[in-house]
């Protein structure tokens, strides 16, 4: 008990990372297990449990292995991608509200996918690379918007610019879909965001992008941490802030593009996950990103479980749920007297 109180009384930045990581990981694993046990398909919890241990009938096996397992794994990957890309973007913009979903990166990716499908592509394999390109274009827009307003100074302005881009791209996507009913059916989840109905093969196609983004993230984590001390300090320590910034945006585009390619645009997760991570372990970007690893999947898989339970027997799209929960959270953050700053 004594340990527990002293743990929470410590400044977040001084809490032992390993303990925080393990605590949240246990929750995440529990959530993933729950995601295999309930929802989607007429297999109840006890039946699911015995199926997991190799018993159970053909149908239960199919539901769990072909429906719920891919869905859970997709949630895991998407959660990590969105959490890390949000943390990276907030660090490089020195703006606590920066997030790929809010700033139009995800909308760029899904618009690119819609355009490709209308232009005749139907294979999901093509959609992956296209989504990355769309996300990259979104990232460049964010960089330009940030540059125009001079070094990302005002958090809310950047979000406004991102909101404008997001609505524009969403409107354009809707126009495209109006003219093409076939694409409209195929793309529905790319517009709303969902981890349901995905195959493991979808996951495999994004893995290379995901791996590159992860490698870049490892490489930039240390210089990025020093950039929190100011750009001149980072330069004095032998880092190159400009190169680091471009590498970070590339990683964000790859992560957000991958996540959007598999699950469609999911807003606010990239915002809330790093917030939660910082509340637990403080603002150091390396600690924040390590905590995003369990927190991101926890939020996505947790939210996905909710989508199966809220509107039974139908399912609510994941993107709709995160928007409904995330929008009020964002309003609370913006309304807070003192907007949290990143150094």
């Amino acid at each position: 008990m004594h340990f527990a109180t002293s743990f929470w009384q410590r400044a977040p930045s001084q809490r032992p990372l390993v303990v925080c990581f393990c605590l949240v990981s246990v929750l995440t694993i529990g959530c993933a297990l729950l995601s295999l046990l309930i929802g989607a398909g007429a297999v109840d919890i006890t039946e699911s449990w015995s199926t997991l241990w190799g018993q159970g009938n053909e149908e239960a096996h199919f539901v769990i292995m072909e429906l719920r397992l891919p869905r859970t794994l997709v949630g895991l990957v998407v959660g990590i991608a969105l959490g890390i890309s949000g943390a990276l973007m907030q660090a490089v913009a020195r703006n606590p509200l920066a997030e790929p979903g809010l700033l139009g990166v995800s909308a760029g990716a899904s618009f690119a996918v819609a355009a490709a499908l209308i232009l005749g592509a139907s294979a999901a394999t093509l959609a992956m690379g296209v989504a990355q390109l769309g996300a990259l274009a979104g990232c460049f827009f964010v960089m330009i918007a940030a540059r125009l307003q001079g070094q990302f100074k005002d958090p809310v302005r950047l979000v406004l610019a991102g909101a404008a881009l997001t609505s524009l791209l969403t409107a354009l996507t809707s126009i495209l879909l109006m003219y093409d009913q076939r694409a409209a059916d195929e793309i529905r989840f790319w517009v709303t965001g969902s981890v349901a109905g995905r195959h493991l093969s979808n996951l495999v196609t994004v893995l290379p992008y995901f791996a590159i983004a992860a490698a870049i993230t490892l490489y930039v984590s240390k210089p990025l941490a020093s950039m929190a001390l100011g750009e001149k300090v980072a330069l004095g320590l032998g880092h190159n802030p400009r190169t680091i910034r471009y590498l970070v945006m590339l990683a964000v585009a790859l992560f957000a593009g991958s996540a959007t390619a598999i699950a469609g645009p999911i807003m606010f997760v990239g915002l809330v996950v790093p917030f939660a991570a910082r509340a637990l372990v403080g603002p150091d970007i390396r600690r924040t990103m390590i905590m995003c690893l369990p927190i991101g999947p926890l939020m996505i898989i947790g939210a996905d479980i909710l989508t199966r339970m809220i509107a039974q027997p139908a399912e609510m799209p994941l993107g709709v749920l995160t928007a409904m929960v995330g929008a009020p959270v964002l309003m609370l953050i913006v309304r807070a007297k003192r907007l949290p700053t990143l150094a």
Partner: protein
Amino acid sequence: MSSSTQAPLGTQSITLKHDDHVIIDGLDVTFPAGKVTAIVGPNGCGKSTLLNGLSRVHLPSSGHILLNGKDIHSMPAKQVAKKLALLPQETSAPDGITVRELIRFGRHPHQSLFKQWGMDDRTAIEFALQAANLESLGDRLLDTLSGGQRQRAWIAMSIAQETPLLLLDEPTSALDLGHQIEVFDLIRELAAAGKTIIMVVHDLAMAARYADHLIAMKGGEIVAQGSPKQVITPEILESLYGVHCDLLADPHTGAPILVNVRRAHDSGASKAAAPSDKKQAELAL
């Protein structure tokens, strides 16, 4: 020039511009090894721009900055960071960082993807804590320290960088008198231990007292350089700041002390004549 007398840092006709506005035009300057050099001058004289140029923050549009005789922009950034540390004027650290964590950043140039955290890093950090007189404060949060302690922690970060050269941009600008002395004393100790220190200082009296070598700038050019006694003369002060003053000698060090500072030509009967006189004095330079 033999390498033993070679200045560790100098410029070769560098031109520094802000957009299209030329701040410094073809400047040559060298900084003496193992000494504390203070760059002084009125607001907008280009002293901070020069320091930013020396530390690679500001890219020169022409000319070279020579670090041990080699062009600084032809060297890998990490190599430069092992020789030259920089403490900018405005610093900010993330909430909840401790003194020791801040100092750890100073080790970045000595680490790489394959050489992460080693024994030499640990020794360097403990040494920096000791040198900056912060041994007992290593685990304190930076925000809980006094201004002087905080600035010493930042300097300790650059000590941990283990560079022969240290550049400081107005290291005491936000500090009260006691904390200023605290920081300048530390800077003197570092110079006594063999570091070459180059700093921009706003306060001429402090510069005169704590620097070995002064470089006085105005309009992007060097008006005078040398020991404080050579540089701080009534004539040079008038040309720099447009002031008249009397000088006394510090009873302990002999360094010049400014007293009775007043605007040039303002003490006489005709105040209205002062601006044009001042302008003439400037033109005469």
